[in-house]
């Protein structure tokens, strides 16, 4: 898949929840992600400050997010700080409506997206499974749309596969399934539904073995993408034998 002319692997990884920089290294090696996401936080509130150094040594693209922002203004400032700190004008734009559901506030999201596109950002918005909102985000210049499968960190998978298909059909930019994935079969399903990439954080970082889960996700995303290209069979009401009916023994 491509974003702004750059070729990226279809598994994207979040780093939130990984317990050590060594685990970050091993997870990135196992998952071979197209990019990894980071958040921007006050220096006194951060732990080990060498996350960026670790990621840059791995040569993986870093995508800053605006996680936790509750309004357009806050999200725009966070994106500006991220551009300054990381030297990238790509941003995963997240504007949430409240801290309980973590669902996108699409009104603030659209406003922030339009402002940031105007300031030269490549905007990748975390959004709902609403095709009308997706189209509006593309209209203001977003480089992709990132609909949620189910709430962030819930691990409930793709609650309504049809919404993902309708978003896919509504826009001609890449669609990245963001949030809700719990297990590799759901990541494969996202690709089968027509997504171009899948962003997974909690499902890997809080798995019992994040390194093995990262590899499983990579394989699942590859399998789902191949299956999408191969074209699945239509669903049928009744059975259809795959072995020939003629020439059966005793008939």
């Amino acid at each position, binding site marked *: 898949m491509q974003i702004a002319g750059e070729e990226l692997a279809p598994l994207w990884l979040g780093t*939130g929840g990984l317990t050590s920089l060594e685990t970050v290294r091993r997870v990135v090696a196992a998952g071979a992600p197209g990019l990894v996401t*980071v958040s921007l*936080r*006050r*220096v*006194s509130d951060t732990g080990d400050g060498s996350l*960026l150094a670790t990621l840059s040594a791995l040569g993986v693209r870093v995508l800053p*997010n605006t996680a936790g922002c509750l309004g357009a203004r806050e999200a725009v400032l966070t994106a*500006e*700080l991220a551009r300054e700190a990381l030297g990238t004008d790509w941003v995963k734009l997240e504007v949430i409506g409240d801290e309980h559901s973590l669902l996108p506030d699409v009104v603030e999201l659209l406003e922030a997206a339009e402002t940031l596109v105007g300031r030269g950002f490549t905007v990748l918005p975390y959004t709902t499974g609403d095709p009308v909102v997706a189209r509006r985000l593309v209209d203001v210049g977003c480089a992709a749309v990132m609909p949620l499968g189910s709430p962030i960190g819930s691990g409930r998978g793709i609650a309504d596969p049809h919404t993902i298909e309708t978003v896919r059909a509504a826009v001609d930019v890449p669609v990245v399934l963001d949030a809700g994935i719990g297990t590799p079969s759901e990541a494969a399903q996202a690709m089968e539904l027509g997504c171009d990439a899948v962003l997974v954080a909690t499902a890997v970082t809080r798995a019992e073995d994040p390194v093995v889960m990262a590899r499983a996700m990579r394989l699942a995303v590859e399998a789902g993408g191949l299956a999408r290209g191969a074209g699945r069979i239509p669903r049928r009401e009744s059975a259809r034998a795959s072995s020939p009916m003629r020439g059966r023994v005793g008939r």
Partner: protein
Amino acid sequence: MHLSVNGRPHELPEGAVLNGLVAALAADPRGIAVAVNGSVVHAADWPATALYEGDRVEVVTAHQGG
């Protein structure tokens, strides 16, 4: 003078500039970004940016996140 730095009260002598404050908070300025009163100040401008009573300063860096 009294400022707010990363949401906490902070005391600085009159005439303090941004560069010194950032150096006190972060050993390595790479990967650091700063906003004063809601506007980003580029690293090149830190030495010439004077701080004033009541300024709100945010000093941020990359952290793990999804």
